[in-house]
């Protein structure tokens, strides 16, 4: 068994454990056993047809990914959650995933474009598509008061403190 095939089988088992977690034991075990049986049948059938382990792995992963939405809806049906709520959550999750993928792709592009590998621009990482404006120089400090003016101020303070 290749690493790809082992990873594909492990992914299906892990996902099945996740979406059947905390369900009624009879329903949970039935679904897990059914998926386990399907994995075994698919593997044996594909091997008998002479498919490569990588081909079998791709087939398994595709069947897993394409059915994720239905798995979640099935869980919602079993737990009597309103399907509309689940559908909205699925859409929100899909949108968030798209934004994340876009952000990751832009970030990787930005990092790749930067020739200095040892200094990563954090602002660019957070806002990859926004051009980073150069920071304006700080204004010059006000000029120090003249020596005589300082002296007068000191005298005024002394006089005010010595008065009863």
């Amino acid at each position, binding site marked *: 068994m290749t690493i790809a095939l082992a990873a594909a089988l492990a992914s299906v088992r892990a996902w*099945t454990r996740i979406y059947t977690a905390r369900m009624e034991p009879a329903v949970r075990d039935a679904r897990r056993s059914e998926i386990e*049986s399907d994995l*075994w049948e698919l593997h044996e059938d594909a091997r008998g047809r002479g498919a490569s382990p990588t081909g079998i792995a791709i087939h398994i992963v595709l069947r897993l990914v*394409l059915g994720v939405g239905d798995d979640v809806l099935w869980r919602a*049906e079993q737990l009597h959650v309103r399907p509309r709520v689940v559908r909205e959550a699925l859409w929100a999750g899909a949108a968030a995933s798209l934004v994340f993928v876009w952000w990751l792709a832009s970030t990787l592009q930005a990092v790749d474009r930067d020739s200095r590998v040892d200094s990563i621009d954090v602002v660019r990482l957070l806002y990859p598509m926004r051009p980073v404006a150069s920071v304006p120089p700080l204004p010059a400090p006000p000029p120090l008061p003249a020596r005589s003016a300082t002296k007068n101020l000191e005298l005024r303070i002394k006089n005010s403190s010595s008065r009863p």
Partner: protein
Amino acid sequence: MPLELAICEAAAALRRRGADEFHGYQIARTIGDAEHVRLLTAYGTLYRALARLEKMGLLRSRWEDPAIPARENRPGRRLYTLTALGDAAVDEARRAAEAAVRPRARRRFAPA
């Protein structure tokens, strides 16, 4: 419900070939091998549809005797059967499909 119909049709086809009972992967393979459709039935989609069909009374299922998978060193199968209601649904769908095709065919050969 195209997948549900495809499952029922595949179940009817398997029965014509002598397989009264079928398991999940068998139906996925039959659907995938059909000449007119090329569907990749995802795990979630297939088993959700099977559960729905069973709830509707078009399919019936049972777990095979545990001694058989133990002897053959494989996981146990959940075996499905097409019910009389499922049979009727397949016939009805076939008739509806034929009726939808017929007027178009008639129109094509109508004299100008």
